[in-house]
């Protein structure tokens, strides 16, 4: 079966997105993690743009622009500023057992493709198979939140989760209504600011951004 060129391109971008999430999962340096996050945003904006072009959905152009401004420029810039102010720019995180994490990640990808298989059957044209990739990225970002111990990298994982969801919304469907997308973008932006406030409060109180210091609240 001949696959249209444009669809091949979207599929290529989707696989790149998945690759970036894997790279983030294994990345130990906080600075590189933020740069990877910016790349992820860039791929997302490009894929949204391509989908907008191929389906002639004008409001998707706005989404693409919003993604570019928010996720490629504004949020990475904010994070860079934050880590400079917090003096954690060159921090390296000790991750336990990257190979095992990677294997679990591969398992999650297989699981999500299976879960999404019946849905992929339903979708026609451009969207086929992309839901599986989106779901896999969501689960991988969740895995990343679990394995990280530094507050900053947990937040990057959270934002990557948001990116994966956005990818699901624009590429698997034809983009959510614009008012909803604006609402989501606003929430993400406010959340990042609040995270920023938190970093300072946490460091002031615990003298480190390591969350292992904070496991005091337990039942019993």
């Amino acid at each position, binding site marked *: 079966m001949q696959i249209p060129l444009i669809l091949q391109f979207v599929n290529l971008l989707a696989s790149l997105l998945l690759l970036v999430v894997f790279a983030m999962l294994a990345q130990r340096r906080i600075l590189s993690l933020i740069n990877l996050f910016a790349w992820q945003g860039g791929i997302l904006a490009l894929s949204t743009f391509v989908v907008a072009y191929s389906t002639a*959905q004008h409001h998707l152009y706005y989404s693409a622009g919003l993604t570019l401004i928010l996720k490629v420029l504004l949020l990475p810039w904010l994070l860079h500023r934050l880590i400079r102010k917090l003096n954690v720019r060159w921090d390296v995180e000790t991750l336990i057992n990257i190979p095992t994490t990677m294997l679990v990640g591969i398992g999650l990808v297989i699981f999500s493709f299976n*879960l999404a298989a*019946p*849905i992929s059957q*339903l*979708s026609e044209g451009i969207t086929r198979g992309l*839901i599986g990739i989106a*779901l896999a990225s*969501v689960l991988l970002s*969740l895995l990343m*939140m679990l394995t990280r111990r530094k*507050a900053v990298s*947990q937040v990057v994982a*959270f934002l990557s*989760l*948001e990116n994966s*969801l956005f990818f*699901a*919304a624009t590429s*698997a*469907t*034809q*983009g*959510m*209504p*614009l*008012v*909803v997308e604006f*609402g*989501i973008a*606003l*929430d993400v932006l*406010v*959340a990042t600011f*609040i*995270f920023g*406030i*938190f970093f300072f*409060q*946490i460091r002031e*109180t*615990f003298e480190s951004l390591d*969350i292992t210091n*904070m*496991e*005091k*609240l337990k*039942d*019993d």
Partner: protein
Amino acid sequence: MIDLQLLALLATPLTGGIVLAVFGSRSWAAELNSLMSGCTFVASVLLTIAVIDSGPQVAFKEQFFIDQFNVFLVALTAFVAFTTSLFSRPYMRIEQHHGKLSTSMLHLYYSMYQLFTFAMLVALTTNNMGIIWVAMEAATLTTVLLVSLYRTPASLEAAWKYFILCGVGIALALFGTILLYFAAERVLGDGGTALLWTHLNEVKGSLEPTVLKLAFVFLLVGYGTKIGLVPLHSWLPDAHAEGPTPVSAVLSGLLLNVALCAVMRSKVLVDGSLGNHFAGNLMMGFGLLSVVVAALFLSRQKDIKRMFAYSSIEHMGLITFAFGMGGQVATFAALLHMTMHSLTKSAIFFTVGHAVQKMGTQQMDRIRGLMHVSPTVGWGLMLGTFAILGMPPFGVFASEFLIITTAMHDYPWTTPILVAALGIAFAAIFGRVQPMVFGETSAKSLPHPPALIPVFIHLLLVLILGLYMPDYLAGWYRQAAALLG
């Protein structure tokens, strides 16, 4: 037309939030906060009257939808938000006097309190499944800085946990919403209408069942994190225990209800599409698990606010279970229990707040003899505990009785589990509260008189509704139950 009432309802807390963001550090900020909450309550009453007169309707280009189900929650939310603002006025002043809070922290508190009310009311009234998500996330964002208001290590940890866990949960709900949109788009086209609940409800029979099934799992897990369903509940006791008491009261009494409302909106769609009891079974399972686990954890608690937070998990589990059973009677009972739980639990948190201020600790084994210190606080806590434990003649008894009898009829195997869990909860809470209220004391007096009028208003309402329910109110609940099926 309800445009005007709805506009008043939503614009008042939003204006309040903005005005208090500017003037929140003035000495009259607490009064302004109460005034704004009072106006919101008046607007909600006007809206309720309009909807009861003329039935369900949409407003503002179909972006908002009000029916008997959500207008009841709107009225409840606005009422409890109002009484909590009355309670928080002296409470927060005492905290300030004790040196726990600064003026700038109070500034943040007042502004965020109004914006939180606004976010909850938007989540309740919107017709757009996407906006429900946005408003739920906004409700988290406005409260997260309130949980860490005291800036103690424990409160920071609680707030971080709340933020991360609810963030993840709500992200899963967004994935569910996207799947819902994916299914709806194929039927309704990709205009702006494919996420409007009223449109979805009309075509729910032709939505693709496989997609909706998966969507509901994500929506339930996502919003379920917010409801505090086990095993996604671990943020809830921390956030309730470490935040200021008025925040615990509104989180427990209101936010959990709003999240449940979002789940119920989704359930109606999924039931229509699947035509079987899939969504109901899932909710029953989560609900039952929450009731049992919360009851077992109750007896291990040492912190008084943590204990009542677990009691909230238990009651939300019971309500989710009742909604899951479905049918007119169970849904009626669930709606009634939502009302009773909100009123009683916020009243309990009010008295607990003052009790903790008097004793200077949240540790239960160091709180003794409240009755000697202040008979009103003592009686308030005792009566509130009786009410929440489902003692007749309080209203909680009526709703729990209805839920258990329905369970006995429809799902007999669940009855022993429910009764045992409620029994364990009773023993745990009553055994703890009794020595706190009676017994010898070591308390100090407060610099401002405590606000206990809201407590007794709430308990009186719960008592009255337990003894006698007016016909129009019962009719209103029945109509709401009929809408949810």
